[in-house]
């Protein structure tokens, strides 16, 4: 079975630009979460989506948004990029319920903002 897939794997953007990151969950998983990991830190929660609805949001500015599609795939959008947005963005799926199950991560998208 395929794991969580994320695209693209690497991305270089300029300050002020916008970026869209994509994620496909493990088949049967209805919950998708997004995490940001900067060097030397653990992953930080950005969003959780379950059954296409936002179920949680971390301490990130409104420049960050996401959505989940009917096939449970998800996109993370970041507007007006700042240098500090440079990080590894991890998508994770879990299931079958919304809670009480471990997160399964993709390999991430490495975003560099110059």
């Amino acid at each position: 079975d395929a794991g969580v897939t994320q695209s693209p794997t690497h991305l270089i953007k300029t300050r002020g630009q916008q970026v869209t990151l994509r994620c496909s969950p493990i088949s049967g998983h209805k919950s998708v979460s997004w995490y940001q990991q900067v060097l030397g830190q653990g992953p930080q929660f950005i969003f959780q989506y379950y059954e296409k609805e936002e179920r949680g949001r971390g301490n990130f500015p409104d420049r960050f948004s996401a959505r989940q599609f009917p096939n449970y795939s998800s996109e993370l959008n970041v507007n007006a990029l700042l240098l500090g947005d440079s990080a590894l963005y991890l998508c994770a799926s879990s299931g079958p319920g919304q809670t009480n199950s471990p997160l399964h991560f993709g390999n991430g998208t490495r975003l560099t903002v110059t």
Partner: protein
Amino acid sequence: DQQVKQNSPSLSVQEGRISILNCDYTNSMFDYFLWYKKYPAEGPTFLISISSIKDKNEDGRFTVFLNKSAKHLSLHIVPSQPGDSAVYFCAASSLAGNQFYFGTGTSLTVIP
């Protein structure tokens, strides 16, 4: 405010010996805990979990211990193998919660 802490940034262990990785948390509402292993250029890989109704969970060479009164958990790897060399993260959540809080990781090196 770091609610999950891994105070040892690194650990070196001889092959065949036991590796013990530690994790502390501050939020008494946490009742579901996970351990992950991360290799460079890969996402974290789920290893083992434990809920607060247990104080121990085993899966092969991996055992997680939970001490709720001390708000402390540990991961034991026995015997350690060179392929275990990676960064290990602990994570915590409340069972009804929608987010996990991660520690900063411990880099384990298993020396052949």
